[in-house]
């Protein structure tokens, strides 16, 4: 655009007049937008629920009671105050199961993102920084794995190595690290030739110093944003696999598993799958809203885009 005055120029001209305090500014933009505020609050609550699950859940999530089976939620006719969200086929308390499900889903998601994030970032950074043959081979591998129908393979692998939380984490990490690697490499490549990196080199900074002092801080915000998005994807995939019986196994509770258990009763006891499904939805939606804000807030170039 020929327009000489872009918004950035303006900010730049103006910002000479004030001192920013980074965190303060970041939080201010967060609370400026009601959606991201809500999302952040929901996420905080979810984390608290996950951590304090044993304290918060009114019942043992595995305690069966055939007498109380298929009790509807409290506000529906026939519901009871004791089981706020009703009970399932085996008379287990839905609320407690959902609380433990939160714990399971978040735990799996976070562990996957941490493992995949660390491995992927290291490989990607090295590929981007070293370049040459290491980069070429790593890149081919990454390209390749991205092109493979991942959900299909996740299913076969889970079927082969057996379901369960630990295996789920392995399989999901295998699917996720490439995305971190690709992003880290891309960012690294663009940073590697940044003029300020060259300036640091000219002033005599060692390669290690340049990597840690100059490259890494410019990498963190994009990686953190990606991590939130990958967290949402991991939770969705986990729920899908658990739904198909290839993920978390009973008697553990997981949202996907609960939806599957309630699936046949959709016409008679819809609360069985409604609530756990809603939890997945709320969680991933909050994460995505938060990630959108985070991306906008940390990357001025993204302003005005999604």
């Amino acid at each position, binding site marked *: 655009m*020929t327009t000489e005055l872009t918004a950035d120029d303006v900010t730049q001209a103006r910002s000479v007049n004030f001192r920013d305090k980074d965190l303060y500014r970041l939080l201010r933009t967060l609370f400026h937008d009601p959606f991201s505020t809500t999302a952040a609050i929901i996420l905080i609550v979810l984390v608290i629920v996950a951590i304090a699950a044993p304290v918060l859940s009114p019942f043992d999530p595995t305690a069966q009671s055939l007498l109380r089976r298929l009790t509807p939620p409290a506000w529906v006719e026939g519901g009871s105050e004791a089981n706020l969200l009703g009970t399932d086929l085996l008379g287990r308390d839905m609320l407690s199961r959902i609380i433990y499900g939160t714990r399971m889903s978040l735990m799996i998601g976070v562990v996957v993102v941490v493992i995949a994030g660390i491995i992927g970032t290291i490989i990607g950074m090295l590929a981007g920084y070293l370049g040459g043959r290491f980069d070429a081979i790593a890149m081919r591998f990454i390209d390749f794995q991205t092109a493979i129908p991942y959900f299909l393979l996740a*299913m076969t*692998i889970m079927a082969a*190595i057996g379901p369960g939380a630990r295996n789920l984490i392995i399989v999901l990490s295998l699917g996720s690290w490439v995305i971190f690697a690709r992003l880290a490499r891309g960012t690294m490549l663009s940073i590697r030739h940044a003029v300020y990196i060259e300036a640091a080199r000219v002033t005599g900074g060692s390669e290690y110093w340049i990597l840690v002092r100059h490259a890494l801080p410019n990498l963190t915000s994009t990686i953190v944003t990606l991590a939130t998005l990958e967290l949402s994807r991991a939770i969705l995939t986990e729920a899908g696999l658990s739904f198909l019986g290839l993920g978390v196994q009973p008697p553990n509770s997981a949202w996907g598993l609960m939806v599957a258990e309630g*699936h046949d009763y959709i016409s008679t006891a819809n609360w069985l799958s*409604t609530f756990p499904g809603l939890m997945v939805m709320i969680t991933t939606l909050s994460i995505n809203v938060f990630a959108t804000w985070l991306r906008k807030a940390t990357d001025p170039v993204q302003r005005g885009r999604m």
Partner: protein
Amino acid sequence: MLRLLLKRAVHSFFLITAVVSVVFLTTFVIGDPVRALLPAETPEEIVEKYREERGFNRPVLVQYIDYMSHAFVGDFGDSWWQRTPALPIALRPLPATFQLGILAMTLATSLGIPIGVYAGMKPGSWADRLATVTSLLGVSMPLIWLCPMLAFIFAVTLGLLPTAGYGSWQHMVLPTIALAALPLGRIVQITRASIIDELVKQYVTTARAKGLPYRRVLVQHVLRNALLPVITVSGWEFVLVVSGYTIIVEAVFGWPGVGWMLFSAIRIRDVPLLAATAFVIAVVVVAINFAIDILYIIVNPLIRYE
């Protein structure tokens, strides 16, 4: 250009090989096919005998080469379930999946592109808000929840459509909607971003300075350029639809497609059928990628110079 397609063909070949190899690795190396085949209480000597007969006691590499050489002429062995060659069985549900997949993608693109274009043109308008909500919901939507909810609302509560099954057009409505939801979100998002990117480019001002009406600038200049990334993303989404989303959607709605076939093969532990189905899906994925490449070359004249 020919080079590009040739490169792509080689890449595709490796991709299919990789998928079949992973299936082989997971079912024959990590899992024990004989145990899966025979009843659990079979005596050890019979298992051993069986192992020998079928050649499962040979070195893994020999088995692998043997297996792959058969696989490449489309021989995955007989399905353990139906006792006939597995590949024809795996191919049979393909039309059903294509029916759904193509319908869903048509729905997603024909809705998503206009919404995205309009939102990109008028940031902040109602269309933009709709686009934001659609794309956020799209990327956060758990299919395991959406499918039962659609069934609950339209089939159980309103009684308008069948809950599950195959045959009439009524059966297609809900699975198509479910399958279109996620691609819709992604397509809206990318179209919007792409239009916004394109509209601020200098050539748009040039075209307007020539006296072209805004609508004509949009149609003849902007739209075509902006749709390039949309084609790529739609292709990826189509791949995800037939290799991922469809597995859950078909499982929920009892739609006899490849996803359902894959899920069934895993559930009944029919290894040849599983491998054949995975092979079919991989071939379809490759074919879609190929089609997208060719479409991209047709639409983008500049690819010759890159």
